[in-house]
């Protein structure tokens, strides 16, 4: 036994205390326990839930990197400074960190706090579910979301959405999306509209002042010392800036209105306003491939969802009653959070359909219904969140019919 392990064993708190639950959570993170098999198989696969979850978290890291930077980039675009993507790198990065870190910390303190409490109360180990939920939630929130709303939404999702149903593996709806939908319905003025997608502006209209705090002054001191450019507290939002996302532009005036503001390249690579992690399509696809190759994310759901969206896109194009409907189907993949929802939200194994055929149906219907909601919903031009939650509700029904087919096949044979 190594010295470190000996030391850690020595400080183990009394069993049954909240401190022990915490200790156990961190200890099993550091060391795989010395538990051996008894009854059943004598050897076990090297795979466990921690490893599964950490692969998902790893596949999100590129989104985190670009998401963080893009918060800063959008901010500086709005005030017309450092408009080239890599210009003012340190400013954009630190600006993004200043926004992302509080969001990340609040999410984890609230979410893990509730998890730890219930693990202690129910007397089981801390389950790893929140590792992924906690990594996803910051990425699907708008960067300027007030932290108290975030805290409320995470508490709602973990408490009502998960622990009330019995904890990890028992929930009906995707935890991350529940927290997002809580913000969406409880604080609609905060999350819809154009203001929220670009951080650090007093208003999203020209002439508005920037909103810098202690963090930026602290950074300025450091940047000054290093001889780099600094945050300019006197900057103003430039003329013609709207802060609108491509989707709200498409809702107003179709694809032409979108391309008049954002280039296709910018939309594809993600240097556009939006939720923190969902803007860059190639990086999400890399994450999705990671999940598919490692076998952790279901390719059936992903492909099914893609096909569903394509089919609905065709149908809407054929109908073509509004400018939004006339947006060519393939451009729907440029806008909004389709790929993020496909790779990381729809594939949550707990809330998705659990049979192989069911996954096809589940994925296809999300794509199909999600695009309907995006295009035909007058209030808010995005649909994946609601479509996934809707299909989460119906996933057990889909599975039920697949299982019934299996059962009746067996009955027929007898």
């Amino acid at each position, binding site marked *: *036994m*190594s010295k470190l*392990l000996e030391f850690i064993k020595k400080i183990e708190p009394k069993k049954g205390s909240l401190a022990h639950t915490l200790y156990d959570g961190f200890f099993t993170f*550091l*060391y*795989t*326990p*010395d*538990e*051996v*098999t*008894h*009854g*059943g*198989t*004598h*050897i*076990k*696969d*090297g*795979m*466990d*839930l*921690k*490893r*599964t979850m*950490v*692969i998902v978290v790893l596949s999100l890291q590129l989104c985190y990197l670009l998401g963080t930077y893009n918060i800063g980039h959008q901010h500086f675009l709005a005030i017309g400074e450092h408009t080239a993507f890599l210009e003012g790198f340190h400013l954009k990065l630190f600006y993004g960190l200043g926004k992302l870190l509080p969001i990340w910390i609040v999410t984890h303190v609230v979410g893990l706090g509730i998890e730890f409490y219930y693990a202690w109360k129910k007397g089981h180990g801390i*389950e*790893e*579910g929140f590792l992924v939920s906690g990594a996803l939630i910051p990425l699907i929130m708008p960067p300027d979301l007030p932290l108290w709303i975030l805290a409320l939404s995470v508490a709602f999702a973990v408490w009502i959405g998960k622990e009330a149903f019995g*904890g*990890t*593996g*028992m929930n009906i709806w995707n935890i991350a999306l529940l927290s997002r939908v809580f913000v969406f319905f409880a604080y609609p003025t905060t999350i819809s509209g154009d203001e929220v997608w670009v951080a650090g502006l007093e208003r999203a209209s020209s002439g508005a002042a920037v909103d810098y705090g202690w963090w930026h002054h602290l950074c300025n001191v450091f940047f000054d010392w290093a001889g780099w450019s600094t945050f300019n507290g006197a900057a103003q939002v430039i003329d013609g800036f709207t802060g609108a996302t491509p989707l709200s532009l498409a809702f107003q005036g179709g694809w032409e209105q979108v391309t008049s503001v954002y280039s*296709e*390249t910018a939309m594809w690579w993600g240097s556009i306003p939006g939720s923190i992690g969902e803007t860059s399509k190639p990086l999400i696809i890399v994450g999705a491939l990671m999940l598919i190759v*490692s*076998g*952790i994310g*279901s390719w059936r759901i992903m492909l099914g969802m893609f096909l569903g969206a394509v089919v609905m896109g*065709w149908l809407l194009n054929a109908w073509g009653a509004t400018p939004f409907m006339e947006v*060519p189907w*393939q451009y729907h*993949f*440029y806008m909004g959070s389709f790929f993020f929802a496909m790779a990381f939200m729809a594939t949550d*194994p*707990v809330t998705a359909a*659990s*049979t*192989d055929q069911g*996954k096809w149906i589940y994925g296809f219907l999300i794509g199909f219904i999600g695009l309907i909601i995006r295009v035909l919903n007058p209030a808010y031009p995005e649909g994946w969140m609601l479509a996934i939650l809707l299909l989460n509700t119906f996933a057990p029904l889909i*599975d039920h019919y697949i*299982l019934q087919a*299996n*059962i009746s096949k*067996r*009955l027929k*044979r*007898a």
Partner: protein
Amino acid sequence: MVIRYRRLITNILFLVLLSPTSLLAQSTSSESFLNVGLVIMAVIVFITALILVGDNLIGIEAKEGKVNIPSTGGFSRLFAKKPAKYVEGSYHALTRGFDIKLTGEAKKEVESIPVSAVALQPPNFTGMSPIPKVLFEPGQEVLAGDALFFDKKRPDIKYVSPVSGEVAAINRGEKRAITEIVIIPDKEQRYRQVPSVDLNTVSREELITFLINTGAWPFIRQRPYNLVAKPGDVPENIFVSTFDTAPLAPDNDFIIQGQENEWEKGIEILTKLTDGKVYLGLNANGPDAPAKAFTNISSAEKVWFSGPHPVGNVGVQIHHIHPVSSTNIAWVLGVQDVIVIGRLFTEGRFNAERLVALTGQCVEDRKYVRVPLGAKISELVKGQELTDAHRIISGDVLSGHKKSQEGYLDFYDDQLTVIDEGKEYEMFGWLLPLKMRPSTSKTYPNFMFPDVEFEVNTNTHGERRAFVVTGQYENMLPMDIYPQHLMKAILTNDYEKMEGLGIHELAEEDIALCEFACTSKQPLQHILRQGLDMMREQG
């Protein structure tokens, strides 16, 4: 049928034709690389559709021509492995499952070892009452073939002594349940007289009485439930798997050498026990054909199987040949069990000697040994000290049972495995393990090195969790069964669903690989046995 497929084909073609036209319509507005990607995707969809259509056409043709092809549709049929050259007749290529490659295979050499104690263990027989009626006192002499005990619930089945000698002890466990009846064998074995039977004229009932009286009956087990068969039942079919794909499993092609006559006789007897057929599951995996004794037999129906473990499990084979249900019973035997039955006729005595493979990384002298049934484990690995740091297993690492050094091999087992215990902490073992370990997961680089053999220990590599991951069990079980939903049905005592989802078709060994792979470390074999017991008591 054909009309339905035609509609499907036209639908697919319609979609495929539609996709490039809509692309062309928009390509003028922008020349971005996404369009190129979409064109590529459309091409892939087109090819996929073509393959699907072709595959369905093949399926229709096959059905009309009454050709036996794997029933799983889609690409698996089109890309199914071609059978090896030696395969003739019915062939099933199974794709799901996983071969766990471990170090410690037994060398192909046989040694007969004298054993100072053997034991019959009543708990080896599923459903046996805890205190069966023992017919001998400690100290009394028995002959090989003398009835030792019987189950009070099923007094018609006798369990006989595998050796002649002195009954040394009747060991009891919890609540005075009898766990072992230990016999010290004589140097010179003496056998109880077996009445002679003329195989040409004997009736089925007489043959069954003969098998019960000679003590060979417990070798015949029934599916569902994996119990010793009921003499009153008439099985639809009898199944024997001639190969074992479990980790480090003994090689039946090697075991059969020199025992071909006994084997053939045994199969001949089995054919008289059923109105249906005796099916042999044959191994189509290897580069060479299995032993002639298996392939040349004419009295049994031969069915070839290829694929990873658990393809060698008789339960999996039954599922693909003639599935069992609560009313449709099948009987199953192992190869060496058939040989013991054959010896009743070729040798005229109950000779329950068998070859046992000594396997596992912790056994120094790995080989096959010829010992009586139920041999004492410490005698098998003579000259080697086994300690608490070793896990001694009667059977294979997936579905065998843990034994102490003073324990005895189980009744149906022909393998002893010894591996390391894994009672140790491992820093970041879940993330960056120091030692490679077998895994079905592609998050380990193992899948790129399919031939690497692993050393293993009994560490669980993680803690038990709720069911989270889906589709994992299905990938480990080549049967049309949803194991995870079945497990949930068992845990919620939903009898109707258990039966509907096919609990009767499963035995613990079939689900063992799912338990190995389970991310949530759920005790599936235990859950399944609970469910089977519940079903048996109900019905």
